[in-house]
């Protein structure tokens, strides 16, 4: 987790070691639990909170939160199959679209609104983020970082839109229409007047990247990012 981003050049050696370690670790990376970001998200939520999970998928996060934090959890999910599975498992989930249906929720109706791995698939990410900050006292957003070195290298050396293990779609059939990098996201938060209370970057192994690292390092090695926002 990081609270600030100022770092001096004296840490260059640390970065160099860090880079080598990261690169090696990622080469060795295997199929660790794909959604480590969910654990990071869960860590940010205190027990008994009121939580809205936007893009709740198969209900993994809501189940985790109900089991470990006894939250009052609700979900909004686009895919009918996901919704039906959630409801059959006793979760309060409705079928709906983050782009269209968030407007129906009241101001500050939830302690936390979570948007996990969904921002990049929305039609209007700025509006969606704005809505999250309106509905929740706090918003938690996790997203794949398009600034990750694999993505950059793929574009640089192959000259083609990157298809990686974590972003397995071709450009023509991807649901992910609005990718951003960690730095892009921080800029958007500024534009919307949102304060970044906490941020975490996860490398390709799902390991948290040390908080002493600067933004550019996160932006290069963070494969996913999780932000806790308030406005």
């Amino acid at each position, binding site marked *: 987790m990081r609270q600030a981003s100022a770092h001096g050049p004296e840490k260059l050696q640390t970065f160099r070691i860090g880079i080598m370690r990261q690169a090696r670790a990622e080469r060795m990376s295997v199929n660790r639990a794909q959604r480590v970001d969910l654990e990071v998200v869960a860590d940010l939520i205190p027990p008994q909170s009121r939580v809205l999970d936007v893009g709740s998928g198969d209900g993994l996060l809501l189940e985790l939160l109900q089991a470990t934090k006894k939250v*009052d959890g*609700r979900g909004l999910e686009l895919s*009918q199959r996901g*919704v*039906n599975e*959630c*409801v*059959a*498992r*006793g*979760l*309060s*989930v*409705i*079928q*709906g679209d983050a782009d269209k*249906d968030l407007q*129906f*929720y*009241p101001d500050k*109706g939830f302690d936390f609104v979570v948007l996990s791995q969904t921002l990049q698939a929305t039609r209007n990410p700025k509006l969606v983020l704005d809505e999250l900050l309106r509905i929740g006292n706090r918003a938690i957003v996790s997203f794949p970082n398009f600034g990750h070195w694999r993505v950059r290298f793929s574009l640089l050396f192959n000259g083609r839109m990157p298809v990686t293990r974590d972003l397995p779609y071709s450009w023509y059939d991807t649901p992910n229409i609005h990718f951003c990098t960690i730095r892009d996201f921080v800029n958007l938060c500024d534009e919307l007047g949102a304060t970044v209370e906490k941020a975490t970057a996860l490398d390709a192994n799902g390991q948290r990247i040390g908080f002493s690292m600067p933004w550019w390092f996160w932006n290069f090695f963070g494969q996913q990012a999780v932000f806790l926002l308030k406005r």
Partner: protein
Amino acid sequence: MVALRARKTNNEADQPSSPVLRFGADKPLKLDAGTLLSPFQIAYQTYGTLNDARSNAILVCHALTGDQHVANTNPVTGKPGWWEVLIGPGKIIDTDRFFVISSNVIGGCLGSTGPASTNPATAKPYGLDLPIITIRDMVRAQLMLVEHFGIEQLFSVLGGSMGGMQVLQWASSYPERVFSALPIATGARHSSQNIAFHEVGRQAVMADPDWHGGKYFEHGKRPEKGLAVARMAAHITYLSEAALHRKFGRNLQDREALTFGFDADFQIESYLRHQGMTFVDRFDANSYLYMTRAMDYFDLAADHGGRLADAFAGTKTRFCLVSFTSDWLFPTEESRSVVHALNAAGASVSFVEIETDRGHDAFLLDEPELFAAIKGFIASAARARGLGA
């Protein structure tokens, strides 16, 4: 034969096979029409046992032409209860765990006071002398039945179509008495198209010379042809084009070729005629008028200044709504608008749209995804209510 059948229906209206709760002059039913109904009676069925805490009661609300015989053999038709696929010992709604109550709605014809019941003032059937009944009136009467059992809060209220309207009315009128609510294939109002179909049905009944201005019992007649036509038209709206085509296509009925006449050449014609004919054996024509009117008048948002969310303000009830993709009577959008209102009210709500070509009637059928949703919702609500597994 017609007179005999007429008498039989009349008997089931006054002296039903079900238990009956009678309310005398001291307990009139306040009607939205502005009058009091008194005396009146409610015919009901129960299944399972009410626990000591009286916390395991589930109220099942029936649809337009349904009745209280949810999970027992219907005394009029001899057929299984209309929701026996869902409700019974060991079933999704397990009567070994829950105390299930279902009652015939006010205005119905199977034992609760309705137009076929005897008007004590005239000793003749009410006919059209019965005031118009609304969904809210039905629910008010159900509340009196629930109070009769000493139940403070129903664990759940569920129902489809007109039954779903009652569920929404319950949750809106008596939120503290409804722990969980399952409105299925329904809406918070009747659409213009739905009112239109109902008007066709009513006009068919009233155009039948045997209707006699609603006093057909006094003439020893029943408007069977008109009611059958009403049912045939309505039945089409309960299905879907795809399901009709799948089941019947353009298949011919017991013949090799078209007859070049107006006999029932096609299977679908024969099927609809059969639906119409069997319906008149079990349903009272005036009651059909009252039931359709009650649905037409239903508009929960209008009762709250046009804002549906206000109908559920501050609710703690847990909701689960279900719609079906091929339902054109209560399309998914109707459920979704209720969901949006519940979201705005900050309510706990689940919403499932089920992919099926079986149309509106899918809620009465063996639909695995419907059952999975109900099962999951009831299980989690039971945990939250402390009713164990």
